[in-house]
Every structure is written in C-alpha cells, then in structure tokens.
C-alpha cells in the first residue's frame, strides 16, 4: 500500500530521518513509537502526503506521492483515513456533520450512509453527543470523533496519531477493537502511540508489528515488546 524508498526528511534544522526504506503492505497493522519529538507525526505526514520527503520517494497505492496533482491528493486523502494529533473540526457544524464531512466532500449520498454514521457514533460512544458542537466536546470525545471521521469513508488505509492520548483505558481498548476489526476486513492500519500498555494489549489480539524511531531510522522493534 505505502512504500518508502530511501526517504530522508529535514524541517531545516537537521535531518529527522536519514535513509528510511520500508513497506506497509495491504492488510498490515503497525504501531509507531518513539520519544516525544522523535518524528512520529512527521513520519505519518509523509505517509499521507501532507509533507514531501526531502530525499527519496514515497509510493502510496503505487503512485509517487510527491508527483500527485492537487486533485490526486484529494482522492488520496479519501483512500487514507487520518486521525490527527490535534484533531480539528469545523466549529460551526455539529459533531455528526463533522464526522460525515468526508461523505459530504466526496459527494456521497448522506441519506444512504445514515445507518453507517449511526453505528459509528455508537462505536465511539458519541451517540448522545451527536448534536453537540466541537467546542462542547471533552478532549477524549474529540479524539473519538476524529477517529470516527477517519474511518467513515471506509478507507483502504487508516493512519492515527496518538488516537488514545486523552482517553481512558476502557475506551482505548474499545477503539483498538474497532481498528482491529477494520484491519481484519483488510484495511491497512498505522498507529503512532507512546502508550506501551496499549501496544502490548493489541499484540495479544492482532498480528501487529511495532516500528520504533531512533537514530534517524525507523526500525522494527525487537523482542523487548
């Protein structure tokens, strides 16, 4: 699905990654860990094309991401559901409409997807908050809404940046199960997280691999997990 070929990246103050070659095959489940500021968010942004690598190239669904036109990029975004670390919403629309936003911008028939939306709201525990506005959500509720928005289009790849940073343990487990279910339906999943207990819990449920950022490299973590 997503392949990195000798990728390097630099914000201007020194390279964050030196020479990363890596492939996230279809249907795989990956965690990404590393200390704060090591470049997890940056790595994810490279994967979904929000940043272009300063070295090497990245293929998403076989196409070079750096060569994509703006409309190609829009299409790519619909095939990759993303949960951002700072989950942003349209503040003037209620939660349900925000979660349905990918349907709206891709021109889907909202009426047909109503059941889908209702199920998803139930999954992330926001059924009762569906009509609230984003500013009225708690931190954890925002993250859950962001996850629901990321998966509503049933994308081929799901990328989540610390999706459980503000969520209690029970709810984290529940969201993890949602992602595991999606993965078992063939979706590719990539999650950045520093929560080792969550990662350990996941490894008992799914064939997950753990990538770790260290020394400007992104490597498969060893047996210490």
């Amino acid at each position, binding site marked *: 699905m997503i392949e990195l070929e000798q990728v390097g990246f630099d914000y201007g103050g020194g390279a964050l990654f030196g020479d990363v070659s890596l492939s996230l095959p279809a249907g795989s489940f990956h965690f990404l860990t590393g200390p704060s500021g090591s470049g997890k968010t940056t790595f994810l942004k490279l994967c979904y094309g929000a940043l272009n690598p300063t070295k090497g190239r990245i293929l998403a669904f076989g196409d070079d991401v750096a060569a994509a036109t703006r409309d190609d990029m829009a299409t790519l975004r619909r095939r990759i559901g993303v949960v951002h670390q700072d989950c942003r919403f*349209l503040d003037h629309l209620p939660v349900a409409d925000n979660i349905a936003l*990918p349907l709206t*911008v891709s021109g889907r028939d909202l009426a047909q997807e109503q059941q889908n939306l209702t199920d998803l709201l139930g999954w992330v525990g926001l059924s009762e908050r569906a009509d609230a506005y984003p500013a009225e959500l708690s931190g954890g509720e925002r993250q859950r809404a962001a996850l629901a928005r990321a998966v509503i289009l049933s994308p081929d790849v799901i990328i989540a940046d610390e999706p459980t940073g503000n969520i209690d343990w029970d709810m984290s487990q529940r969201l993890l199960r949602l992602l595991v279910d999606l993965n078992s339906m063939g979706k590719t999943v990539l999650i950045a997280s520093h929560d080792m207990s969550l990662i350990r819990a996941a490894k008992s449920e799914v064939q997950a691999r753990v990538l770790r950022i260290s020394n400007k490299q992104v490597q498969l973590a060893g047996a210490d997990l």
Partner: protein
Amino acid sequence: MRRFFGLLSGDARSDRVVPPSGTTSHLTLFVAAAMGFLAVFALALAMTADRVADRWSDAQSQSATLRISGDAEQREARTAAVLDILGETPGIASSRPLTAEEQAALLAPWLGDDLPLGDLPLPQLIEVIAERPGYDTDALQQRLNDEVPGAVLDDHSGWRAPIVDAARGLRRLGVISLLLITGTMAATVTLAARATLAANAQVIEVLRLVGAEDRFVAGAFVRRLTVRALVGSGAGMVLGVLAVLLLPPGGETQGFLTEIGFGGLGWLAPLAVPVVTAVVAFVATGVAARQKLAEFS
C-alpha cells in the same frame, strides 16, 4: 459567464461547510453596501453634470442672435438676405426676426419700458436656432461679413461659457469620483475576501484534510462572497437611489443642481453598480481562494 451564474445558483452541500457568518462577513457586506451607496452618488453627480453640460452647450449652439443694423430700408433688405443665407447654411434648424415688442422687452432692463424707441433706427435682431451638431460659427460670420454689411452674429458663448465650463468640471469630478470609488470598492472587496479566507484558514485546512477538492472549497467561498457583495452593493445601491431621490430640493429658482438625479433611462445606470461589484468580488475571491488554497497541501 456560465461559470459565474453556475456558481451563483449554489450547491447546498458545499455551502454548509462555510461558517454562516461572522464579523469579517459583515464587513464584506457593509463595505459592499457603502461602496454601492457612494457609487450611486458619484454616478448621479456625473450624470447630472453631463446632462447640464449638454443642455448648456446645446443652448449655446442652438440659440444665437444676429444683429442687423442700417436704416429701415437697408435693414429689410439685409434681413431678407440674411434669412436666405441662414436657410442655406447647414446645421441651422430655424431662424426668425424678432418682433419690435420682443426687442423692446430685451432692452427694458437698461432703458425702461417707456422710452419712445419707435423713432430710432434700432437694429433688427434675428433669433437663430441651430441643429445638432450645429453650424460653423466662424464660417457663417465670414460669409455674412462678405455678403451682408452690418450683420453681426452673437452666439452668446461669452455669456454661457463659464456655466458650461462649470458643468463640464463637475462632470469630470463625478467621473473621477466614480473611478475612485470603483477602485476603492474593488480593492476593499478583494481585501475583505482575503480577510474572510484568512479567518477561515482552519475550515480550508480541515476540508483539504478530509479530501475536498480545490474546486469544492473555492466554490463554497467564491459563491458565498460573491452573493454577499451582490446583496451588499444591491442594498447600498437601493439606499443610494433613495437618498438621491430624497435630496433636499434646491432653492426656489431653478438652479442646475436642484435637479440632481438620473434622467429617464439614466435610472437604469445604478443597476450596473451591484453587477460590477459582484463581478469584481467573483474574480477577486477566485484569485484569493486559489492563493489561499495553495498554502495547504
């Protein structure tokens, strides 16, 4: 053009994603309205001045006076000759000798009504009414000099020039104001569009992140802002026309600015104001939206 109207017709789907309102949008509306209002005023000024300048320069070329001196016999012969010449001159609508009473009325301010003018070999005055575009004053005077001694043409230009000049100056001022206001309007609507887009940077970012195409995002904003500029300047235009109608009437006498306003079909001119504003807003917002969108991958 089709794109313009296509956009205005709207798309409920993409309209919802733009926040309904806010101070910046009020600003756009208000600036469009204010500029529409002022534009109508400047337009009224320019068009009134144009009408006045036309009328006075018309009056100037249309009515002239020919003075024929000599004794009674000479006068009669010369009058006939002059009338012939005038009849042949292209650009003259009509000519007519003034009656003795009319001449006396003209002189009354200077001489009073009770002077026995009948005895005097008063010159005969001939009123000359010109067509548009009028006749060649110099050529006519030349021919009269050659053919009819004692016939002097007075086209009143000395009297009327200052007024025509004033009206023309006024018209120039109106046109300059109109250009200034149109320019200001365009610049302000452009800036208001940019401010709206800047204020909505997060909306644009979120939309791009969830996979909205540029045309979807730009369309939503362009439509919204164009409609806003159209509505704003339309309202300003209506208020402007009302204000022009309600302008306190001049004095008792009929001065040429007591009649400020639009004549006849001129009343359609203010309709151009919102149209121009909307087109400017459409183009400005389109450019601004494309620039703003380029900031987001």
